[in-house]
C-alpha cells in the first residue's frame, strides 16, 4: 500500500516537474480521442443506414382490376404460405391513393384529384425474412413456363415488382462511404498512435539520465517503470476526459437540437453516449500507459 502511494506520488511529481511535455501529451490524446469520438458514431450510423435499406427490400404484387375480394383473400393466404415470406399486407385500391399522395408533391396531388376514377390497382406488400431471398420468392409467385413467359401463381396477379435495384444502389453508395470512412479512421488511428508514442517518448527521453541513475542505485525495472506507467494512465485519463467533455458539449449544443428538427440527424445517434465514453477513455488510457511502458524498455535494457 505504501508502495502504491509512493508510485502515484512519483508520477504526479514527474507530471508537475515536466509540465510542457505533459501538456503536449494531454493535448495529443485529447485531439485523437475527439476525432475517434466523432468517427465511431458516423461509422456506426452508415452501417445502420445500410441495414435500414436492406430491411425495406420486399416485393409488391399488383392485382388485376377485375379480381374479387374472395380471390384476393385466397391469394393473400397463398402468398403467406410461401417459404421466406413473413407477411403479406393487402392494400386496396382506395388505400393506395393516400400512399401515393404521400410520395408525390402537392402539385401532382392536385392533378391526382382531377382524375375522375381511381387508376391505382390493389396490391400485396410482401415482406421477406431475408432480403437475399427476393429472387426465390419472386420465382415462386411468377414461375416461368417452358417458353420462358411468366406464368403467375394466380390469374389475378397482374405484375410483381421488387425494390432490389433501388436498394442495391443505396447499399453500394453507403458501402463506398463506409470503406472511405474506415480507411480514414484506420489512418487516423495509426497516426494518433504514433503521435502519442512519440510524445511520450520525448518526455521519457528527456529523463533518461534519471532512469540511468535509478538503475545504478539498484532500482528494479518495475520499480522504475510503475511511476511512468501511472503517469501515462493519468495523461490518458486527463486527455480523454477533456475530449469527452468537449464531445458532450458538442452533442448537447449542436447534435441534439438538430436531431429534434431533422429525422436524418437523429439516425446518427446510433451509438449510446455512455458506451462510447467508456471505449474512448479506456482506449486512451491503455494506449498512453503502453506507450510509456514500451518506450521505457529501451532505457531499461543492459
Amino acid at each position, binding site marked *: 500500500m505504501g508502495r502504491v502511494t509512493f508510485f502515484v506520488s512519483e508520477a504526479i511529481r514527474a507530471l508537475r516537474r515536466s509540465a510542457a511535455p505533459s501538456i503536449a501529451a494531454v493535448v495529443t490524446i485529447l485531439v485523437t480521442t475527439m476525432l475517434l469520438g466523432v468517427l465511431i458514431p458516423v461509422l456506426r450510423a452508415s452501417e445502420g443506414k445500410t441495414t435500414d435499406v436492406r430491411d425495406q427490400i420486399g416485393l409488391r404484387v399488383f392485382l388485376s382490376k377485375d379480381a374479387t375480394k374472395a380471390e384476393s383473400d385466397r391469394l393473400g393466404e397463398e402468398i403467406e404460405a410461401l417459404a421466406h415470406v413473413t407477411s403479406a399486407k393487402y392494400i386496396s385500391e382506395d388505400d393506395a391513393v393516400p400512399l401515393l399522395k404521400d410520395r408525390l408533391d402537392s402539385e401532382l396531388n392536385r392533378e391526382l384529384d382531377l382524375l375522375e376514377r381511381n387508376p391505382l390497382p390493389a396490391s400485396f406488400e410482401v415482406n421477406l425474412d431475408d432480403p437475399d431471398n427476393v429472387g426465390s420468392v419472386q420465382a415462386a409467385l411468377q414461375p416461368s413456363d417452358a417458353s420462358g413467359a411468366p406464368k403467375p401463381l394466380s390469374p389475378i396477379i397482374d405484375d410483381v415488382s421488387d425494390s432490389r435495384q433501388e436498394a442495391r444502389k443505396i447499399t453500394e453508395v453507403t458501402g463506398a462511404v463506409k470503406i472511405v470512412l474506415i480507411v480514414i479512421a484506420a489512418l487516423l488511428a495509426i497516426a494518433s498512435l504514433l503521435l502519442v508514442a512519440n510524445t511520450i517518448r520525448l518526455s521519457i527521453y528527456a529523463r533518461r539520465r*534519471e532512469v540511468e541513475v535509478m538503475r545504478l542505485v539498484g532500482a*528494479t525495472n518495475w520499480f522504475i517503470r510503475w511511476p511512468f506507467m501511472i503517469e501515462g494512465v493519468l495523461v490518458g485519463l486527463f486527455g480523454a476526459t477533456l475530449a469527452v467533455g468537449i464531445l458532450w458539449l458538442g452533442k448537447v449544443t449542436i447534435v441534439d437540437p438538430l436531431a429534434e428538427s431533422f429525422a436524418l440527424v437523429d439516425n446518427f445517434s446510433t451509438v449510446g453516449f455512455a458506451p462510447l465514453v467508456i471505449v474512448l477513455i479506456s482506449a486512451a488510457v491503455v494506449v498512453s500507459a503502453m506507450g510509456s511502458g514500451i518506450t521505457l524498455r529501451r532505457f531499461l535494457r*543492459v
Partner: protein
Amino acid sequence: MNLIGTRRRNRATHERRRAAGHERAPAERNEEIRPPIVELRDATVVYPGGHVGIERVSLSIDRGEFAFVVGPTGCGKSTLIKTLIREVDVASGRVLIAGRDIDNIAMAKVPLLRRRIGTVFQDFKLLPNRTVYDNVAYALQVIGAPRSEIRTQVPEILRLVGLQAKIHNYPDQLSGGEQQRVSIARAFVNHPPLLLADEPTGNLDPETSIGIMQLLYRINRTGTTVLVVTHDHSMVDKMRRRVIAFEEGRLVRDEATSGYHDESTTEFAVRVRAEMGVGDEGHTNGDTH
C-alpha cells in the same frame, strides 16, 4: 536491518584483525572467516568493437580494506568498477562479490547486487529534480524501506556528511563538493558492505577533495570496504593505503604502501592537509571518530 547486521560483523572482523597486528589478513585465515569482499580471477572485459577494458586481472580485496585503484586514462579503472556492479560482463574469468560469482546471477537480480554496493561517481549522478533529502531517500525507497525508517535514516546520514543545513536544497543549488557528499550519503545510506568510488574527487579542488577523502575514510572505519578509483597520485601517496595500479587494462602493481597504520579521522585529515600543503580551514565537519 540485515545489512546493518553485516556491517557490525564486518567491524568486528576488522577489529579482530587489527588486534592481531595484521595489516592484511593472510588469505587462508580470511577464507575460514569469510571470503574476500571483492575477488577477480583472471577477469577479461572486451567491449563491443573489440576494445579490451581489462585483461586477465586477478585481485582480491578483504573486508574492511581501503584501497586505491590508479592508472592513466583508459587503463581500465572505470571498467573495473563497471564490472563490479555488472554494468559490463566479463568475457572470461570470474568476478566474485562476497564469494558469489556475479556473472551467474540473473539479469533481474542485478538490482539486488547493486543495492549491496554503494557507488559514487565522478559526475555525482544525482537526480536533478529532487531535493538532497529525496535523493538520499530514493536509495532507501528502492529497497522498500518503511517510511519511518527513511525519516530517521536520511537526516542521520546527512548529518554524517555535514549537509544537515541543505537538506531541502536541489542539487543545482549545491557546490561540487556538496553534491559529492550527497552522492556519498546516498551510496552509504543503507550501509552496504562495499563502497565503490569512481574518481570521487575528479571535479573538485584539493581542499574539497581532502574533505571527501576524509568522509570516505570515516565510512571505511565503520567497517565498510572502500575502493577508490582515482588518477590523483598526490592524494594516493598521502593516504598511505593499498594501491592497485592499472596500465592498458592490466594490473601492474598491487602494494600496501609502507607506513599504513590506523589513525582517527581527524588525525588523518590533519596529516593529509599538512602533507599536501593545504591549510586547515575548519572543514572538518560533524563528529570525529
